Each structure stands twice: as structure tokens, then as C-alpha cells.
């Protein structure tokens, strides 16, 4: 092997990397929060919502879960302008991630809801709670607690999948690595650094979600 490793470019290009990390984190935060909210709404609609609504939610979930994320992204960014809906690359990336996590989150959360014993619904009703109140106070929290590890994994997957947004020129961490690679031709070093950063981000995100689980579900061990 006669390749000389050279990390000298880090001196010049670290602002690009920092900006990339910032955008990846921002996309993950917005996508994660809004995506889980959308997932909860869809899970409710699919498991307990009005019968007329269920096929539409099911269609959305199947459409998103059975098509590649990259295609969804391209459709929003390059396709929708033909219909007069034009958004910037960050808005398009955020929207695609929310829609994507919403569909996967829906199925994960629905599993948690459907695993709730029917006695728990009846307990809520016997306390004089409305259906919505029962859902919010009695059903949702234990359901989320049950599926929290699976949901956490899905959020991490969405963060890693956000690498695709570099394809629509959103300047995330993958874009930064590609950019540096095309300027310095230091492919090994650029992607190695990006790998380490993604690894750190993923481990950090997982720990943060575990911590969030402890705060959200203090009564029983979600650990």
C-alpha cells in the first residue's frame, strides 16, 4: 500500500463539516419530532379512528413504506414544481423525512396501541373519560412505552437515511464529505471522518432517546 494519509484538509474544510453536522442534526430534530407526532396521529386513526378515515391512512402508510426514500425525496423536490409546488432543498428534505418517519412510526405505534388490553379502554370509560381522553391518558403513554426501543431505532434509521438529502444539494454531513472529497480527492479520509461523525451522532441520538424514555415513562421501567 503506497497511499499516504493526509488530514491536512481538515484545517481548511472543518467549517463545511460543522455546517453539515448542523444541518443533519436539524433535519433529524424536525423530522423526528414532527414525524413521531404524525405517526401518533396516523396510529390513532388507523387503530381507533373513524372507519371512513382508515383506508386513507392505510394507503399513505403503504405508499411510503413500499417506495424508496430517495424517490420520495426526488418527487417532492424535482417533481412537485411541475404542479406549482416549489420548496427549497431543506424544506423538501424536512417534509420527506416527516412523511417517511410518519408512515413507519404509525405502524410501530399502532402495534403498541393494539397490544393495549381492552380492559384499559373500559377502565378509562368507567372513569368518565371521553374516547380522546382515554386515548391520551390511558392508552398512548403505555403504548409508547412498550414500543419506545423500536421507535428509537426508527428515528436513528431516519437520521442515517438523511444522507440521501445530499442528492438534492441540501448541505448535510454527507454533502460535506462529498464536497471535500471532490475538492481534495482525499476519499478515504473524507468518508472516514464522516463515518466517525455519523457513528458519534447515532450513538448520541440513541442515548438521548433513552434518556427521553426515562423522563417520559418514569413509573415503569422502560429501560
Amino acid at each position: 500500500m503506497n497511499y499516504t494519509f493526509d488530514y491536512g484538509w481538515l484545517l481548511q474544510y472543518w467549517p463545511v463539516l460543522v455546517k453539515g453536522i448542523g444541518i443533519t442534526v436539524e433535519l433529524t430534530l424536525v423530522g423526528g419530532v414532527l414525524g413521531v407526532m404524525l405517526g401518533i396521529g396516523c396510529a390513532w386513526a388507523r387503530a381507533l379512528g373513524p372507519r371512513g378515515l382508515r383506508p386513507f391512512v392505510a394507503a399513505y402508510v403503504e405508499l411510503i413504506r413500499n417506495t424508496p426514500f430517495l424517490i420520495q425525496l426526488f418527487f417532492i423536490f424535482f417533481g412537485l414544481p411541475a404542479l406549482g409546488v416549489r420548496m427549497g432543498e431543506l424544506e423538501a428534505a424536512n417534509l420527506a423525512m416527516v412523511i417517511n418517519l410518519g408512515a413507519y412510526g404509525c405502524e410501530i405505534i399502532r402495534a403498541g396501541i393494539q397490544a393495549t388490553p381492552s380492559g384499559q379502554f373500559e377502565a378509562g370509560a368507567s372513569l368518565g373519560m371521553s374516547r380522546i381522553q382515554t386515548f391520551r391518558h390511558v392508552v398512548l403513554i403505555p403504548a409508547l412505552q412498550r414500543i419506545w426501543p423500536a421507535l428509537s431505532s426508527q428515528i436513528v434509521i431516519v437520521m442515517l437515511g438523511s444522507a440521501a438529502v445530499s442528492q438534492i444539494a441540501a448541505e448535510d454531513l454527507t454533502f460535506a464529505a462529498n464536497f471535500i472529497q471532490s475538492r481534495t480527492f482525499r476519499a478515504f479520509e473524507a468518508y472516514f471522518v464522516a463515518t466517525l461523525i455519523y457513528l458519534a451522532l447515532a450513538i448520541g441520538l440513541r442515548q438521548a432517546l433513552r434518556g427521553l424514555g426515562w423522563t417520559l415513562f418514569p413509573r415503569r421501567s422502560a429501560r
Partner: protein
Amino acid sequence: MNRRHLIALAAGALLAATQMPLPASADALATIEKDKVIRIAVPQDFPPFGTVGADMEPKGYDVDMAKLIAGKLGVKLELVPVTSANRIPYLQTNKVDLVISSLGKNAEREKVIDFTTAYAPFFNGVFGPADIAVTDAAGLAGKTVGVTRGAVEDLELTKIAPADLTIKRYEDNNGTISAFLSGQVELIATGNVVAAAILARNPPKKPEIKFLIKNSPCYIGLNKNEPALLAKVNEIIAGANKDGALDAISQKWLGAGLPKDL
């Protein structure tokens, strides 16, 4: 042709180039006029300069240029398909009289062959629809330009970009083209050949040249020590430039007329 053939051919070309005496003997123009045939090397894998059509006939900018020259000389045209790697060896080993193969001029090539005047535009520049008035890099302030990441035009545009120009870098030419056509960027920096490929699809937004970033027009290559042939071909190019024949070829294959400074 498989890989082994190619290697053998390349090796052969190399041997021939080193061992054979240069065809210094003579006056290529006299030979052409005596034999009533001119052999011209053209590309067959580089649209729109040279490709093979569905009817297996070569076509393209370079092919039309070869036809034009043969026509003006009043001799039969023999097209010799070449690749970008073997086009100069073909000339040096006297397998062809001229190379019309989107050949750019540089100091290394000038050491081994001669060049005529330019016959085709080949440049990188900023392109955009007619309603955006930009004539230089400073005029890009506040605009959004799409470019293919890592391409020559990316590097050059980054150097000359005003501070508040937004450059969006796409993965490949298709991304850049899609971003332009879908209105995600107002302008694109790319090659005139790519712009021609967009025009060929007849889109609602037509990329017109705003200003050049890097200009490296194509020249016709010929062997050294052929002053008569060089003068004759230069004369034909000048004539075609004047009577609009060259402009017509450019319109046909590149979707745009010749730049004034060619």
C-alpha cells in the same frame, strides 16, 4: 472490440509511432488531390460531435465538418472512427490526413501535431433563461446557480463567485439539469454540450449563454510540416465561417450559433 484488442491496438500504435519515420516526405495536400480521397478521423462515441445513428451511419458536428471539408476540396471522404485516446496516434502514423474529433489545443499536443483555426465552440459558462439579464460574474449577486459538484465549472465558478451568490451543487449533470428545469435554481453553470442536450428536449425554459467561464474551442489536428494542407483547411474554415455554413452546423448540433469570438 474487446479489451485485449484495444491493448494490442494501442501497443501497435505506440510501436508504429516510435519506429516508423514520420511521413515527412510530402505534401499531404498534393497526395489528397492526386488520390481524390481524404481520410478524416472522427469520434463515434461523443455526442453531439460524433455518434453512430440508427442507420449505422456516423453523424454529428465533427462528421458534418469532415463532409464540408471534403466537399470544398472536391474529393471523396473516408471517415475513420477513432477514440479520444487513439486519435493523435492515428494522425502520427499517417492513417488519417486530418483529425476532426473535438480536439482541444494544449502545449503538449502542440509539440507533436499542428492545429488549424478553431472550428467548433467548446466552453463552460453560465446559462439561464432569456428573462434573466446577467453578463458577468458580478451580475450573479443574489442569484442561485446550480452546478455539478466537482466539475471544472464548479471549481472556476467558486473562484469568481460574488459573496451573495448561492451555489447549489448536484451530484451529476442530471441533477443539475433537473434543478434548472424544475426551477429550483435560476441559472446553471455547465458545458455548452450539456446545454445543447437540454435544448434538444425542447423544454419550456431554454438555457441561453450568459457568460463564459472557461473557453477551450475545438481545433482540427494535422501533421506537422504540412503548410499547404494547413493553409487550405484554414481557408475552408474561414470561408465556412463567413458564408454561415459553420453557423448552420453549430445550430444543428449544439442548438446555438457560433460565439462571436470563435
